[in-house]
């Protein structure tokens, strides 16, 4: 509970400082919205050239896009700043976080809290909402329940990827870009139907880095589509478990990273 309070205090401080320049803030949110909308424009253009891609319609793809983007939007808003860990290790500014009486990860995540990142969340929500008006889903109580569970578990899985990536930066200090392969790469992947990708690729993001549990498995259940590598349907309900497991592993990686940390001494 203490961690949440500390996070809230630091984030509130950054939000106040951001809102001093209201026009600049509005422009930043708009830019974030537009930048993140760009990948949807590409999907729209692809569907303007073909009625289906990988056997999926535009509305179905928009549903995948929306669910992945909302989850990622939540994670980027809450944890987007941990990307900078390598920078803090290099310039020694991480030392200040270590001496304060609050969890280091909480401080790193809340520092420079970027409210502008709401842009992606909003854009994802819009696309998701639009797709729901276009899709003819056979709603059941289980499917209705699964939708919010999927969005939150997905955010937690992306969160584990973010934290694990940050932990890796304790060792490879200027390799922040490798993290993008898993975060932004993972997001891009999940915005398309799994039928688009090669079988081995799908197996990799299901069992090695469990990105498929962010949205593919639950979303395909909601859409009434089989998963391309023939897994049992009830796996659609396991994202909370996968999220908990991923977060536990990421936490271990983070601890190992902090323990191995040596200050720059400069």
């Amino acid at each position, binding site marked *: 509970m203490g961690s949440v309070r500390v996070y809230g205090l630091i984030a509130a401080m950054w939000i106040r400082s951001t809102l001093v320049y209201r026009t*600049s803030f509005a*422009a*930043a949110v708009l*830019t974030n919205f*537009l*930048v993140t909308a*760009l*990948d949807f*424009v*590409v999907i729209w*253009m*692809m569907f*303007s*050239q*073909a*009625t*289906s*891609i*990988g056997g999926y319609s535009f509305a179905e793809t928009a549903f995948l896009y929306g669910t992945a983007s909302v989850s990622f939007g939540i994670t980027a808003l809450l944890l987007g700043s941990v990307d900078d860990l390598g920078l803090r290790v290099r310039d020694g500014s991480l030392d200040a976080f270590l001496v304060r009486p609050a969890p280091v990860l909480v401080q790193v995540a809340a520092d420079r809290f970027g409210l502008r990142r709401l842009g992606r969340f909003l854009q994802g929500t819009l696309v998701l909402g639009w797709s729901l008006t276009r899709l003819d889903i056979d709603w059941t109580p289980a499917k209705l329940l699964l939708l919010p569970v999927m969005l939150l578990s997905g955010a937690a899985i992306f969160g584990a990827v973010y934290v694990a990536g940050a932990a890796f930066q304790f060792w*490879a*200090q*200027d*390799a*922040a*870009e*490798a993290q*993008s*392969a898993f975060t932004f*790469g993972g997001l*891009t*992947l999940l915005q*398309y139907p799994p*039928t*688009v*990708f*090669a079988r081995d*690729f799908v197996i990799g993001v299901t069992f090695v880095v469990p990105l498929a549990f962010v949205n593919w498995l639950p979303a395909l259940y909601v859409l009434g589509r089989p998963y391309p590598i023939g897994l049992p349907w009830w796996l659609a309900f396991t994202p909370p478990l996968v999220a908990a497991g991923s977060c536990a592993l990421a936490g271990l990686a983070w601890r190992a990273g902090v323990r191995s940390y040596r200050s720059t001494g400069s």
Partner: protein
Amino acid sequence: MGTFRLYAAVAAGGFRRYATYRSATAAGVFTNTVFGFIVAYTYMALWDERPGLGGYDQAQALTYVWIGQALAQALSMFNAGFAVDMVARIRNGDIAVDLYRPVDLQLWWLAGDLGRAVFQLFSRGVVPLTVGALAFPLALPGDPVVWLEFLVAVVLAVVVSFAIRYVLALSAFWLLDGSGVLQFGGLVGMFFTGLLLPLNAMPGALGDIARVLPWAALLQMPADILLGARSGAAEVLAAYAFQVGWAVVLLAAGRLLQSSATRKVVLQGG
């Protein structure tokens, strides 16, 4: 001769600056390769539905993906590159020192950016393209002349890319904070270079507009030459002419803006 050596030294400095960060380079190669795979699969699905879209067959479309990943960093397609440094120097006033140097400001930054581009072309370009060629059936030419024509187009593309961002960076003289402009430039640039979808495959009027904008000189022209979509002296020269045309216009615009900006600086007393 003296001035040539000076700019060569600046270019070498640009090369060395980026060559210093080995693990960052390795991380970048990894990320470009992962994105190459993701985009390649989506293109395969699209070209399955629409064979021949944009005048490319599927092998050409896949090759386009990997050329895009190989050139993305050398051409600063999704970042502002040197412009971030230049905007910072305008903002904190260090640019006044640069203006007093007995060198041409625009050529100075261009030389440094060319050095960087050469490093990133070989470090971050070769590996993704090789991996792509091993994993997918690509349509790479066997004729060394085509590769040479391609390299010339890449050099011209670097110059156009530089010229665009030089103009954007100069806006900081008037706006004080150029980060918004750079961000917007990156956004527009990433879309109109065709990194996400080839300009040939963009629908309707949007595609027509995209194909004549300066960003079309960055990825589309070199890619079309390497893919054989533009072959023969006449078509290759036409592509070069398009690139040179935009380079001249944008470099001249940069000069004009620069001289009016420096007059403003002098008026303000530096």
